Every structure is written in structure tokens, then in C-alpha cells.
């Protein structure tokens, strides 16, 4: 019962957050969006009228003609519901409803690789690449991190331990994107091993595409892993050290189970809940960071899409991507919660 209630409250909070995010995004970009849409209509109407020369000939003086054009524009604005401001309840509700059912409308400037300007299509074309890059990196980071963390907690104060801790502190002080620039400088300029741009140069439907994608992915993955695994190892080490001080471990020690076995099977299993939680959280956290990382490596994912959308102020794309990023973020927080509850029964009973 306790778990159910817990999940329901969490779920409701998440939904609330999602709505608030949407509302905030729309209110931040709403007024700009209106201006852009209206300008689009004016342009469209004028183009239509000038194309059809017979309309212009039917007028005696320019003022009358101008009036006619203005009238047409007003009509168009009204049919699209733009005469009420973006914050009017109907329009706000309508926009939010549309976004909730994943209908983001059409992009103003950007298009997908296949040429579609439907925001949903653009996003779903880019998303797999972001997920591919960051899940790969996170999996590698967590494997190295857990092994290294366990190893250094096994011998506290040893060389491995000290090097890991120092590396963790130092590596996490460097911005990932800066290391990315350095990596491009070293491995794409000085030693030409990897390509400087991470976008594969061949088309997605050609046979060698997957290989090319993996080859282009190498440099970003190496960079993210290099920056990330130290902090992970340090975190795992600290969890493990905490657990190693618990009574049941001491009991196991007195029974005479070897320390190595205690560390790698008993302690590591008990450290699993926080580790899994942080795994889920860091995955979602890296999605936000993807914006800068992908901009540096020119990786054709959500992050770069977001960056491009910001630089040309393509508002539908901005709203859509923020929504999707938030959803992904919330889903992973939710999964982290679930996993934590699953692994650690104490959560269910307390709270």
C-alpha cells in the first residue's frame, strides 16, 4: 500500500512538473511566437494578392487597395485564432493539448534530414542518436566506475584509491565541451585519427552507415567517458566504504569470509540501490548537457537540434524539444525512484 501511494504521489508530481514546464516554456516564447506567426501571415497574404494581378486592377486608389489587404490579413488572423493573445485560456489550453498529444506543428526554418518540417518528425529523427551516444557512454562509464570504485574501496589509502580520488576531483572540474575541443585538436588536427565533425558524411540509407556512425561516435564517447568515470568511481567507492562499516559486513568478516569476496559480492550488492538510482539520474542529467556536447562535436542529435533551433529562434522546435527533454528527464527520475524502492525496501515503509 505504501509503495502504491508513494508512486501515485510521485507520478502526480511529475505530471505537475511537466505541465508547469510546458506552461513556462510557452509563456517565455509565446509573445515572440505570436509576432512571428503574424508576420508570416502578412507576408503570405501580400504574396497571394500580388500574384493575382486581377485583384489589384479592380481598385481605383492605393488606399482602398491597402484597406482590402488589411482586411484580408485580419480575416486570416481571426481564423487562426491569433486575434486573442497567446495567454488567453482557450489558446493556452489548445496549445498545451496539442503538445500533450505530441503534435508540435511545423518548424519555421529547420527540417529533418528527409526534408520534413514536422517538428515531431524532426525530433524523433534526432532522438535515437542522442540516446545512442549517451547510453553508450553512460554504460561504459558505469562499468569502469563500478569496477574501479570497488577496487579502490577494497584497499583504502592504496595507490589505486588515491589516484582514483584525485582523478575524480580533477576530471570533474573540467567542462566536458572544453575537453571535447582539446580532443578534436589532438585527435583530429595533430594526429588525424578521428574526424573533427561527428556527423557522418554518408547518407543514412547507404550500407556503410552504421560503421561510419560508430567511427564518428568514437571521439565524443571517449571524451564523455574520460570526464565521467572518475567521479563515478569515487561515488561508488564512497558508498562502498559506508557499507563496509555496517555491522553485517563486520559479522561476515568475523566468520572469515575473504575481504575480496565481501567487497565484490556482499557490499557491492548492497551498494546497488544508490548506484542504480544515480545511474538513472546521470543518464537524464547528461541529456541536458547533450546540448553543449553535441554542439562541440557536431553530433546530429537532440542537443544540436536544440542549439540550432535557439540560434534561428525556431520556436515550435524549441517548445517541442524542451517538452521531450523534460519528459525524458522526468521518466528517468521516475524510473530511478521505482528502482530505488525496488532495491531498498526501507523506502516503502518509511516516508
Amino acid at each position, binding site marked *: 500500500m505504501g509503495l502504491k501511494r508513494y508512486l501515485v504521489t510521485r507520478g502526480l508530481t511529475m505530471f505537475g512538473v511537466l505541465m508547469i514546464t510546458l506552461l513556462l516554456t510557452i509563456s517565455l516564447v509565446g509573445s515572440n511566437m505570436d509576432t512571428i506567426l503574424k508576420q508570416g501571415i502578412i507576408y503570405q497574404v501580400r504574396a497571394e494578392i500580388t500574384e493575382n494581378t486581377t485583384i489589384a486592377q479592380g481598385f481605383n486608389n492605393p488606399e482602398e487597395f491597402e484597406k482590402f489587404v488589411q482586411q484580408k490579413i485580419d480575416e486570416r488572423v481571426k481564423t487562426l485564432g491569433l486575434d486573442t493573445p497567446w495567454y488567453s485560456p482557450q489558446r493556452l489550453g489548445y496549445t498545451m493539448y496539442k503538445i500533450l498529444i505530441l503534435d508540435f506543428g511545423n518548424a519555421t526554418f529547420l527540417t529533418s534530414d528527409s526534408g520534413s518540417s514536422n517538428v515531431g518528425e524532426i525530433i524523433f529523427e534526432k532522438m535515437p542518436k542522442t540516446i545512442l551516444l549517451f547510453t553508450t557512454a553512460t554504460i561504459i562509464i558505469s562499468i569502469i566506475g563500478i569496477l574501479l570504485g570497488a577496487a579502490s574501496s577494497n584497499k583504502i589509502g592504496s595507490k589505486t584509491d588515491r589516484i582514483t580520488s584525485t582523478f575524480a576531483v580533477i576530471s570533474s572540474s573540467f567542462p566536458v565541451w572544453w575537453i571535447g575541443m582539446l580532443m578534436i585538436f589532438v585527435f583530429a588536427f595533430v594526429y588525424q585519427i578521428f574526424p573533427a565533425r561527428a556527423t557522418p558524411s554518408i547518407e543514412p540509407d547507404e550500407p556503410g552507415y552504421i560503421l561510419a556512425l560508430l567511427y564518428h561516435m568514437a571521439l565524443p564517447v571517449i571524451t564523455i567517458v574520460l570526464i565521467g568515470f572518475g567521479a563515478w568511481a569515487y561515488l561508488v567507492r564512497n558508498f562502498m566504504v559506508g557499507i563496509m562499516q555496517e555491522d553485517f559486513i563486520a559479522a561476515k568478516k568475523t566468520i572469515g569470509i575473504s575481504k575480496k569476496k565481501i567487497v565484490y559480492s556482499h557490499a557491492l550488492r548492497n551498494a546497488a540501490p544508490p548506484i542504480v538510482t544515480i545511474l538513472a539520474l546521470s543518464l537524464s542529467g547528461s541529456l541536458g*548537457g547533450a546540448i553543449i556536447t553535441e554542439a562541440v562535436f557536431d553530433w546530429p542529435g537532440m542537443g544540436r537540434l536544440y542549439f540550432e533551433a535557439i540560434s534561428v529562434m525556431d520556436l515550435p522546435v524549441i517548445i517541442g524539444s524542451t517538452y521531450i527533454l*523534460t519528459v525524458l528527464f522526468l521518466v528517468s527520475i521516475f524510473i530511478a525512484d521505482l528502482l530505488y524502492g525496488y532495491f531498498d525496501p526501507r523506502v516503502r515503509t518509511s516516508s
Partner: protein
Amino acid sequence: MSSVSTQEIKKEFLKSKLGLTGVFILSGLILVSIITISVIPASTFQEWNNPEKWISYPKTSVPSWVNFLSSDKIPEHKIINAEVFQSQENGIFLTSQQFGVYFEYDDFPSDFIFEMKTKYTDSHIVQIKVIRPDGITLELLSTSLPHSDNETIHNQRYFSTDSMIKKNLSTYKDDFGFDFQVGVTEIIFSELYTNQIQKGNYIFIVDIYGIGKDVEVLESKMILGGKAYGLMGTDELRRDLAIGLLWGTPLALFIGISVSIGSVVVGLIYGVYSGYKGKKTDEVMMRFNDVIYALPALPFLIILAVTISNSIFLMIGFLMIFSWVGIAKVSRSMSLQIKTRQYIEAAKIMGQKDSKIIFRHILPQLLPYAFASIAISVPAAITTEAGLSFLGLGDPSFPTWGQILHDANTYGAAAQGFWWWIVPPGILIAITGLAFVFIGNALDAIVNPKLKR
């Protein structure tokens, strides 16, 4: 949560090597900031984006100390002031500006420019020549100052790229033993028979002849365009990177410290109040906290910067919005523990006001934790701001480190090998971050004795 007295913290801190290293680095950075603010004129950063100011600087040149490290000497960018001599013979006035250069590098200079400001009336003839170390004189240019009936002040620039110079040089073709299909500087600074650099003293002379009238030289300098300049080199827009990096230091410290202090104060008060009040208030406040916690920070910061403003002060506010949340959570759980202590109960029974209990009895206990979290949260603020600037969303009127890296990325510095443009800003960001991480970790180890092992 144990309470530790300030004295103890001080004593323990002085024992921590890491903490002291942090303090040492931080004081270095503060010193640099103070020197920058007091010594370097503020106009340098106000005109950071004004190309006019940087026109006499070289383009993407390496730091000049590179010459100490390599055997090949890269020509340094030089700005040489003139020595002016005046003489008169038969009513002809000669004003001679001489620029002496000792050229000892292993590569040709890229170009040269003469810049002068003169005051004169009437017509004057200008002749530019160079005396080379081997004694040969090359006439470079004969031209005249624009005629003027009244006394005028005239600014004049002569560029080595002037096609007349190339034309004049071609009259010496027979003296040289190589093809003249090279740049002007590669002829002037070359040996006679092979196209190799001739090292030694060069004297460039700009002679101004006037009949019956004198010329007053107000300013005169020669810029010998090299490929090495200053302490940190220059970027694609000819800006002196040393100045940008120096100004970046106080800015980074300002951003980092104000964001972290602001968010820690807000988070602390919010968390303590929520924990102390408990029940409905706590529930509502923590739900709100959850909401902020679940907002994706970076996308929001980007949208805020784009739609509202990218002014550095507002940016500090935006960063605070997203960074007080974690601190509020921790300080809430701490205040939950503290409020059950007997003296708090006693204070309550005595009828003390809530605000008094919070500010008198609970908050002071959390101060050590607050200091540790201030130090720990500085690096995140600095890197986030740098990240935003890197995306081109920073305040363009301030040369922050992130801004410099943004420019580096826009001009493809990594792909073109301009390491001096990429490496120093990142290292400075990391060093600043490390200083605070060191201090924060040292404080944290004292405040949370559980971590001490």
C-alpha cells in the same frame, strides 16, 4: 549533524593540505583580479568587441614565449616608434622618420604598416625606403600627402600590400638571384641570391620633403606584422588574449561566488523553515522544491537567456533559480533533526517566535555546512555560465572565459590548431573550479566527520 566550533574548524582546516592548496590557488586568482581591475584600463574590456581598437594587433599569433621553447624563432609582432630627424637645405625641408628593427627570426614577417599623424599645409612628397643589413637600399614607395591650403592634421597609413611597393621592388629584379613570385616582405627580408631570411639590422625610413614648408609629425609608428605576440597570443579578431583572460578572472569569481552565496542562503532558509514548520507547510514547500528540481536546468537557462536577457546580472539570478534546490533538501533534513533537540523545545515552550528560533538556534548550527556548500557549488556555477557563453548566449559586453572559447569554436580554432586560443581559458576554468572544490572538500570533511577516514 554535530556542531563544530569555528575555532575547531580553523584548526582542522589548517591541517588539511588540500584545503590549503585551494586557499593558495584562490588567493592567487583574487590577486590577479585585483591587479587586473586596478592596473588594466577598463576601456580594454569595454572595447573587447570593437575591431577598430585591435587593428594594429596581429591575427591569430602564438604567444611570444613559444620562441624560448623552440629553436625556430617565429617572427614577433612589433610596434616600432619612429625617431624623427629634421633638416633643411636650400629651402627644402626634410623630415625623416626612421624605424630600426633587429630581425633575428626564422620566418618572414607577414606584413608591415606605417601609421602616421602629421600636421602640414601645402604639398609634401613622401618617400619610403629600407636599408638592409647587407647595405643595399631598396626604394619602396614614392607618393605625396594630399594637398591642403590650410593647416590640417592628417592620418595616413601605408600598407606593405600596396601594389606600388611590389612594382617598385621589381626594378631590383636583376640584383636578386631568385624569382619575384613571392610576397613583398619575403623580398625585403631576403638574402640576395637565395630566398632565405637575412638576419640583422633593418632601417626603414620614411622621408617627407616639403618646399619652404615644414611638416610636424605628431605620431608615427611602424607595425611589423609577425606571428607571435604578447603573453597569450591573439585571436582571429586580432584581440590580445591576455587581456581577455585577465578580465575573465574577476568575472568568473564574481559569477561563481555570487551565485553560490545567493543559492545557499535561499536554500538554507527555505529548507530550514520547511523542516521546522513541518506538516502541511513542509509538504507544500517540498512539492514546490520537487518541481524546481525536476525542471531541466540547461534548456531553461537557454530559453531564459534567449527570451528575457543575457545580461550577466540576470544570468546570475537565473543560475540561482536552479541551484538552491539540493541545499534546501539537505538543510530541511538537518533542521528536522535539530528541532527535536530539547533546547529548541524549551525555546518553543518559552514562547519564542518561530523566526527567532530559526535564526538564533537552528541556522547557526548549519553555518559550517553552509560554508562547505558555498565552496562546493561555485565550480558548477562557473562551468554553467561558461557553457552558456560557449553556446553564444553569454553577455557579449564582458570577455568571459566561456566567451573566448565560444569565439574559438566559431572560428574553428581546434581544427586549425590554434591551441593558445583553446587551452588557457579551459585551464583557468578548471583551476578556479579546483580551488573551490579543494576548499569545499576540506570543509566538508571537517563538518561531516563521517567522511573522515
